[in-house]
């Protein structure tokens, strides 16, 4: 924490102002449609940040992240619909279930090379979608196969995680995102973070130094799955309707991976930047061109991804950081230049 606050005063000031602006946003923006876009940007930044624990730091490419988001959404929803349990409680149960699935999947697959891990996660994500599309009911829980679940509407209350206005959703997901970013920061600067960085780049060398690479990758995967499921519960409560194709399967998984790679995987702010850049594209094209030009936003995503990977393979966070650094440190650098070449 000390290290986090030990920054240049100007950076601290700008961050404080940004945070203040984020928290004040619902006071200014009144249109629910616009609020929804902001909420979705933050939600996707959250999804991608949870992806980042394993995709960014463990050096593998998970392409089935939606499986865990789906587990979260389905668990909290069926518990709420069947037993009237608070979705907040269901969120924790969903997280634990997702973590358990993560362990079952991670134990055998994290030992495999990158390409195999990517393929295995695709199979798991798609398998999960097919499974949920084929099952109408498990014991007392109705999941309705491909037509999905509409949440039972109740009066606006915190315990039931349903609100009449968008502002509470906005604050909840904003706080969730900030907590995850904080956790990412602590993890990066902890023993686990260092071990993962070493294991991601040179697994053999790291093993030779006595680091149990597979174990730390598994820890990262479990944290990632646990938190991703929370995002799934939030999605279900926000939309109040979801079906297997919307929350499981390839499209969501790939969108998350795209956001991470364009923003910058393995960085704290990369997922936020990626979501900030890509989400508005998909919302705006869907609203204005959705009927006449279907799939246009995915073409744009793909092209942006190819171009970014070509010129900035580590993502856009690095070049932007350099730009800001230059702006902030400009006076100091000019002084240094003057000293080094006296004319």
């Amino acid at each position, binding site marked *: 924490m000390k290290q986090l606050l030990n920054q240049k005063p100007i950076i601290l000031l700008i961050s404080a102002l940004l945070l203040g602006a984020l928290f004040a946003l619902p006071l200014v923006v009144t249109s629910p449609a616009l609020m929804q876009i902001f909420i979705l940007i933050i939600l996707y930044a959250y999804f991608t940040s949870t992806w980042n624990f394993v995709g960014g730091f463990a*050096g593998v*490419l998970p*392409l089935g992240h939606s499986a865990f988001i789906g587990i979260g959404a389905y668990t909290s929803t069926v518990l709420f619909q069947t037993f009237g349990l608070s979705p907040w409680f269901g969120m924790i149960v969903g997280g634990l279930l997702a973590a358990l699935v993560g362990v079952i999947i991670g134990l*055998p*697959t994290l030992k*495999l*090379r*990158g*390409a*195999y891990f*990517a*393929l*295995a996660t*695709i*199979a*798991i994500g*798609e*398998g999960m979608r*097919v*499974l949920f*599309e*084929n099952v109408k009911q498990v014991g007392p829980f109705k999941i309705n196969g491909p037509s999905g679940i509409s949440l039972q509407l109740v009066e606006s209350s915190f315990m039931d995680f349903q609100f009449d206005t968008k502002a509470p959703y906005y604050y909840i997901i904003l706080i969730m995102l900030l907590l995850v970013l904080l956790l990412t920061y602590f993890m990066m600067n902890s023993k686990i973070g260092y071990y993962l960085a070493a294991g991601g780049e040179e697994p053999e060398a790291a093993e030779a130094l006595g680091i149990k690479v597979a174990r730390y990758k598994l820890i990262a995967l479990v944290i990632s799955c646990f938190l991703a499921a929370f995002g799934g519960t939030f999605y279900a409560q926000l939309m109040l309707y979801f079906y297997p194709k919307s929350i499981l399967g*390839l499209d969501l998984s*790939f969108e998350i*991976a*795209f956001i991470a*790679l364009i923003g910058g995987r393995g960085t704290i702010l990369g997922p936020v930047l990626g979501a900030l850049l890509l989400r508005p594209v998909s919302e705006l094209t869907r609203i204005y061109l959705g009927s006449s*030009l*279907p*799939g*246009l936003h*995915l*073409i744009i*995503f*793909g*092209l942006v*991804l*190819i171009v970014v*990977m*070509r010129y900035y*393979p580590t993502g856009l966070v690095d070049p932007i950081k350099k730009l800001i650094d230059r702006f902030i440190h400009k006076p100091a650098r000019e002084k240094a230049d003057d000293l080094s070449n006296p004319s």
Partner: protein
Amino acid sequence: MLGIIEALINGLLMGSIYGLTAVGLTLIFGVMKVINFAHGSILMVGMFAAYWFVKLTGLNPYLAILVVVPLLYYFGYFMQNWVIKPIFEAEKDVREPITVIIVTTGIWYVLDNLSLLLFGAEYRVVKTSVTGKIFEFYDMYFLLPKVIGAGITILCAIYLYWFLKHSKMGKAIRATSLDREAASLMGIKQSKIYNIAFGMGCACCGVAACVLIPFYYVYPTVGVPFDIKAFIIVVLGGLGSIPGAIIGGIIVGIIENVGAQFMASTWTELLLYGVFLFVLLVKPSGLFGMKQDF
């Protein structure tokens, strides 16, 4: 009993077509160590090309092979040369080229949605001289285009195998896939080999696309199920192994068709994922794969 034998043979026929798409994927992986996620989309491009060829000229669908295969060969050749090569070069020394994988995913999304934009989401069929014809064999009935298609794909796979084993270019490709550095020391120009291998991988999709056209729908995301099946097949057969891809394809075809005798066809998809994960866990090198590749 006859029904099961019929399903078995149907699986064999469909499986050999799956196998040929997987051969393309495995060829590219063997040489570049890159999984081409856009493989299914390339098949889709080939199917649309074949569809328009038959629709506009009214010629026999199997003549489309003469047009579609060179088209896809150069499509793959230049896609590798212009889009993939620069990214691949930057990541050459990395053991697990993740950026390249994700770029091929980007290509997948661009191609699929571009064709959605151009052709719309509807399912298209083209009536050809063999569409709907039945081939009778010991009281069992098969679609004639499936039988012809399986025959053509098997011939193609055998030719490709022979080409890689005995021709000069084939030897250069195999040398590159075994050891990049040593091959380039022997005077083999790597980037050219990568382009050719990518082109040949895509050309395999071209053949598969032409034989699918007489009995299969064409739509913008038609590549996705084939893509995922090709992934399953190459892991099953062993990444980088051509006979493995054909045999893996036949196994997948048989599981799918025989499974459909006992359960709803949506469940057979799940069965395939199950088999896939099982193979990954038990023997990730697959049936014919080399040990060092996983």
